[in-house]
């Protein structure tokens, strides 16, 4: 019980400390607002910030979905053909090591449509863990099981469906959890790079906007929303993965 509430207790303590330091040292609000000022800024315009959050989350989840479909199917293509593996693997790694902020401006110019370009950016970041994890999972069954399937005359297709895909499922799900957080990061980075030329509605844009106007409490409020969204995505996808595996009987 105590370990479970410990983080909340610590957080509360930090907030109280933060508020008291800001008040006692009379830190100007444009340098560091206290938590009460941040809450006040949120309550002043909750609708605007929540709409922005919804916009960022839409980009995040569309990107996650696209990354899951692309990453999963490319891993399967790679698992079924050595040629595909040789062709895909180096490019997937190249994509992984290219920093998103460096290619985001290009993508935004090329794609044109702001929403689509944000999704493309976030997908690029979210793709690799899903792809790599699924590929690892597909290759995870011991060779003896492959021999066994061969012994009973199972072809590639049956081996894929009855052995490799079920074996890859837990790996895919943990990739999904990692990529969920990364998709949010990708969406935020892309919004920051796009700035006012972008979709102009996401939370990262609100942060930029607030920083230009020196509205620090509003900036903090947007930051807190992003942090809460990131944590929720992580926990939500973790719970989703466990539920799927339990339904599959491997809980």
């Amino acid at each position, binding site marked *: 019980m105590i370990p479970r509430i410990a983080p909340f207790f610590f957080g509360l303590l930090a907030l109280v400390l933060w508020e008291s330091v800001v008040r006692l040292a009379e830190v100007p609000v444009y340098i560091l607002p206290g938590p009460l000022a941040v809450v006040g800024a949120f309550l002043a315009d909750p609708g605007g910030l929540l709409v922005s959050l919804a916009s960022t989350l839409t980009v995040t989840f569309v990107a996650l979905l696209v990354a899951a479909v692309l990453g999963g199917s490319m891993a399967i293509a790679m698992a079924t053909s050595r040629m595909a593996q040789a062709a895909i693997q180096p490019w997937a790694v190249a994509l992984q090591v290219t920093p998103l902020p460096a290619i985001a401006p290009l993508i935004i110019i090329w794609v044109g449509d702001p929403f689509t370009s944000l999704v493309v950016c976030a997908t690029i970041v979210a793709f690799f863990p899903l792809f790599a994890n699924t590929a690892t999972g597909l290759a995870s069954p011991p060779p*003896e099981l492959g021999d*066994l399937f061969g012994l009973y*005359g199972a072809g590639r297709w049956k081996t894929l469906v009855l052995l490799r895909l079920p074996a890859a499922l837990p790996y895919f799900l943990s990739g999904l959890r990692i990529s969920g957080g990364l998709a949010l990061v990708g969406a935020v980075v892309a919004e920051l790079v796009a700035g006012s030329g972008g979709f102009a509605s996401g939370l990262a844009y609100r942060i930029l906007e607030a920083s230009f106007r020196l509205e620090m409490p509003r900036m903090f409020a947007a930051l807190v929303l992003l942090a809460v969204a990131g944590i929720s995505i992580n926990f939500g996808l973790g719970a989703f993965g466990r539920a799927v595996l339990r339904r*599959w*009987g491997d809980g």
Partner: protein
Amino acid sequence: MLTISSVGRRFPTGTEALRDASLRLNAGDFVALLGPSGCGKSTLLRLIAGLDRPDSGTLTWDAGQPPAPGEVGYVFQDATLLPWASTADNVWLPLRLRGISRDQAEPAIAAVLARVGLKGFESSRPRQLSGGMRMRVSIARALVTKPRLLLMDEPFAALDEFTRHKLQADLLALHASIGCTVVFVTHSIYEAAFLARRVVLMTPRPGRIAREMDSSVSHSADTRLDPAYAALVAEISQAMEAELR
């Protein structure tokens, strides 16, 4: 059932796993391939199963052609079960791969599970079972297609001694009641002497068959107390030492 003549196998790495191995398998045999690691016993088993091909020599089946899928059962050192599938679903696998539905397979699954003493564990997952029980599932899976030939690659090597003794006794009972041919790979002299009607001694570098020894040990509840068993163990040990020198 099968005549193996002068079979050789060299791996791409250059290791000569097997040289000039010849062996005759008769229907109903219980043959142990015995030797230290690297003697080619597992390679020979894989060749018999058709999981690998020899570089030289021939395998001639009395039936005129290699066995069809399902006519050979194979048990590995690890149980190699599907971790997400229940006991019954794991045993169903060989039948499922041949297009037999779960409903059609149900009687065969129930029968073979009863045979290996796993009645009541149909819906257990592998992780809920002990090592010995997982190996029983693995044996049931190999037997569910009613194979004429059962190939076992050190199936009990990873089990504790008490579990191993129990499974050895149960395997002999199964062999007596089913009557299929068994080829059993082991590095334990005691295991080979206890189980096999014929012990094939193999030596490493290169892997080859050194000699064959017949067993006249009578199988009963207290085989291990039988002087003939002790004599056979001693005889195999001496022969092995002589061959390895």
